[in-house]
């Protein structure tokens, strides 16, 4: 089955059930149940996929939801994106609301308003958002800049720079007893620099942490802490050096 849209003309709907392909275009709704490949850029108000979808090009969707796997080889833009399963974007991703249960990987930059993820987030370049809530692991090969960051660690997360206003990193709930003895069950975060106004960390390894009020919780290993107002350190944390600075 092949369905093609006409750019600029009246928008129809694309519906693919079973196996199918399309050459893209502008649509009102794109609905995929089964397995579909779209060869070319696609623009739609609503994108819905149950199963597998691959867009060989860019995708612009007013709202997109997917149960299953979804892959966009170029950039993706959307109002709200909801995925249960896996989503891969080859280039830049920008969206207002993102909610993922499963995995999201972005090959370029990512910018978003509110992001909620249970599972994994991989971003290859810089990443900026207003709110980020993650339960799971996060990997950003650049700067993660967000007004509010809330990470509950499961697995090992890695960031180059983590910056924003309120940064909260908590360990996930590991195995109640064994977790103490088997390393890695609680999750961890490794970063080069963490900077923000209020910073609360657990199970974090970082060379430099700078902030107004800094709380270093259990399981942390920090090279240098620079704080302005307040600094608290858990007895199970190691901080090589700390200094109060007057900003």
């Amino acid at each position, binding site marked *: 089955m092949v369905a093609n849209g006409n750019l600029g003309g009246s928008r129809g709907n694309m519906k693919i059930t079973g196996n199918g392909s399309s050459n893209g275009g502008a649509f009102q709704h794109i609905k995929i149940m089964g397995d579909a490949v779209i060869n070319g850029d696609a623009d739609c108000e609503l994108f819905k996929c149950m199963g597998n979808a691959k867009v060989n090009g860019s995708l612009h969707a007013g709202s997109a939801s997917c149960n299953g796997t979804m892959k966009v080889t170029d950039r993706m833009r959307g109002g709200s994106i909801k995925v249960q399963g896996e989503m891969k974007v080859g280039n830049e991703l920008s969206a207002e609301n993102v909610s993922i249960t499963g995995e999201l990987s972005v090959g370029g930059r990512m910018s978003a308003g509110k992001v909620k993820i249970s599972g994994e987030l991989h971003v290859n370049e810089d990443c*900026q958002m207003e709110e980020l809530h993650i339960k799971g692991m996060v990997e950003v090969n650049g700067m993660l*800049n967000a*007004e509010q960051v809330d990470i509950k660690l499961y697995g090992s997360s890695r960031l180059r720079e983590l*910056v*924003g*206003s309120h940064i909260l990193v908590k360990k996930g709930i590991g195995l109640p007893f064994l977790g103490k003895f088997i390393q890695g069950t609680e999750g961890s975060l490794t970063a080069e620099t963490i900077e923000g*106004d209020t910073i609360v960390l657990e199970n974090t390894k970082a060379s*430099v942490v700078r902030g*107004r009020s800094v709380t270093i919780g259990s399981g942390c290993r920090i090279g240098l802490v620079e704080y302005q107002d307040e600094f608290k350190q858990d007895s199970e944390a190691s901080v090589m050096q700390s200094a109060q600075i007057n*900003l």
Partner: protein
Amino acid sequence: MNEEDLISKKELLELTGISYGQLYRWKRKNLIPEAWFVRRSSFTGQETFFPKDKILQRIERIKNMKDGLSLDELADVFSPSSHVESLSTQTLIKRNIVTSFAIELFEEEFGRQETLSFNDILTVYLLQKLLQSGEITREEGKMLVTVMRENYGALAAKPCELVLIRKMGVPLLFLAESAEQIYFDKDVKWIFRLSLAASIEELKLKLNNTEA
């Protein structure tokens, strides 16, 4: 760029009294361009530096304006492109953005215009500003509109400067995409060099203000 022209992030926050949260919020909103974050390695790993004069001036302006305008409106003021696509010449005169005198001079070169695009509004605005300050003559004003019309399109959204020099009474007007250092022989007199980005900011404030 010289070492002295850079300021470290820590010094910047100390000097301006803003917090990390504010700095990064403004970066997210593109009030501070990505290119100004200069990374250098130091003994603690990597440090971020900024071009001193530019960042201090920008932060001062953000601090002054942020009470009146939302961050998104501010972002628009600082961005080189505009949401104002075009305006009619009548509206421009009525809203006191440019004078009818400047528009007449512009029309002498290009014929009567009903509406002006943002680039043309900018041209007329510059023309008026420079004529009023007495820095250019009418003839040079005509040069200005031609230079802007022919070249500004290609430079759009890039930081550039408008420069006027005179040698033995012969004016030479040009747009420079980067004119950090230029040297002329001693007979050449610099009349002015004007950063277009600053003028765009002024113009946008005027356009936005009268809209509200």
